[in-house]
């Protein structure tokens, strides 16, 4: 897969994950190159969230190997912390720190984890808020913002740690339709700047215009991975075809 001989930044090898007896991930093999943008889609319950959460160890995989930027994910706390510093994550339900103002949401991790000075943290937080077009909301609490604004704060909060990779888990599916595009616009800009992204989403327009590859998951497996053109126009697997016919019909 690697086009220029570089090491992939994320590698999953034969990853399995169980919840009790239920196998949520079945021998997942998956790679992401630096600068690559991958969209993951698939029906509900297919394991998309589980896979993406394994990448920064919000879930622990049971077997197989996950390597992120050269660190293999084991129970070693040092490696986990190192990985989390390099991987930003955006959740479906924003998950902002409700008791902190927007600006403090952004400054907390740099101050605590990177030991950045307060002034410096504030400056880079403001820069990021400008980048997501809400510098004027810096002194509000999350509950005072619209969903779209909250999600943009969440993106900025993840960017504050200067991650190498950004993971998105259905970032727009909790949003009212009119707010979806303001979040997608920010994500498109991130992609244009060359950010490595793994994005679970059903926004097929976004997938078409931004993704290098689209991975389709079903019942804990990656069924098919293809560039958008191929994926939409010439799906190979029956399950992919069924999924596409459902999702594109409305």
């Amino acid at each position, binding site marked *: 897969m690697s086009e220029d001989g570089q090491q992939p930044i994320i590698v999953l090898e034969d990853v399995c994950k169980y919840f009790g007896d239920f196998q949520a991930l079945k021998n997942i093999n998956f790679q992401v190159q630096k600068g690559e943008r991958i969209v993951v889609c698939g029906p509900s319950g297919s394991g998309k969230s589980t896979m993406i959460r394994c990448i*920064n160890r*919000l879930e622990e995989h049971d077997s197989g190997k996950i390597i992120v930027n050269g660190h293999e994910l084991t129970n070693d706390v040092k490696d986990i*912390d190192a990985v*989390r*510093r390099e*991987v*930003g*994550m955006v*959740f479906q*339900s924003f*998950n*902002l*720190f*409700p*008791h*902190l*103002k927007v600006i403090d949401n952004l400054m*907390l*991790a740099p101050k*605590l*984890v990177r030991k950045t000075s307060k002034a410096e943290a504030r400056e880079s937080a403001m820069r990021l808020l400008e980048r997501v077009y809400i510098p004027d909301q810096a002194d509000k*609490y*999350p*509950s*005072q913002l619209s969903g779209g604004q909250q999600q943009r704060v*969440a993106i900025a*909060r*993840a960017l*504050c*740690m200067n991650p190498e990779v950004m993971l998105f888990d259905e970032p727009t599916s909790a949003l009212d339709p009119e707010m979806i595009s303001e979040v997608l616009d920010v994500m498109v800009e991130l992609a244009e700047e060359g950010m490595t992204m793994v994005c679970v989403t059903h926004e097929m327009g976004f997938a078409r215009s931004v993704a290098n590859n689209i991975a389709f998951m079903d019942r804990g497996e990656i069924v098919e991975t293809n560039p958008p053109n191929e994926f939409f126009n010439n799906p190979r697997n029956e399950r992919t075809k069924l999924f596409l016919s459902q999702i594109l019909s409305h």
Partner: protein
Amino acid sequence: MSFDVSLIIDSLPKMLRGLGLTLQLLFISSFIGLALAVVILLMRISGRWFLSAPAAVYIYVFRGTPILVQIFVIYYGLPQFELIRESIFWPILREPFGCCVVALSLNSGAYVSEILRGGVLGVEKGVLEAASAVGLSKRQRFIYITTPIAVRLAIPAYSNDTISMLKATALASTVTLLEVTGVARTIVAETFAPYEIFIAAAIIYVTLASMFQKGFGLFEKRMSRYVKDA
């Protein structure tokens, strides 16, 4: 029989002298109880059985028995043992005041730790995951995310518990302490006017309880400025 309002007015100042002792019992026990509660909470959520099991047993025992019985066990019961009488705690356990403070503190420790645990469990999982995802350690998550959110969630229940504690201080009168209820009982023994005197005492307690409730309400409001419909 007649209801003598002037008796209420006459006895109020006397009872207010008992108020000092009531408040001392309340504040000292609440303070010790809170410190104890934090320790017990940390033991309970430590994830290690040899810490969480004793904490759970402690909570179970103190929540499952009447405070009056606890006071009696400590005040009347403990002196049965030579060991206690010769220990450094004897100066405290010899006095009814010390015994009441010990009983009330232990009690409040058990209840408040459960209240705090409720607050901790009320913190949304997703918010903590987000904190992990930006690289905060377990300790940092507890200090900077869990604690402030849990404290706010715990205020209403803590407010109720403080009022329960205020009411529990009246039990000190059963071991001869002259706090508000104790004073009231001695006056009733002299005047034999139970309605007037006890109602005067009740007025003091209800007023105090309302004041505490107001105070905690304001505190909660302040702490909730980040919540949408506060």
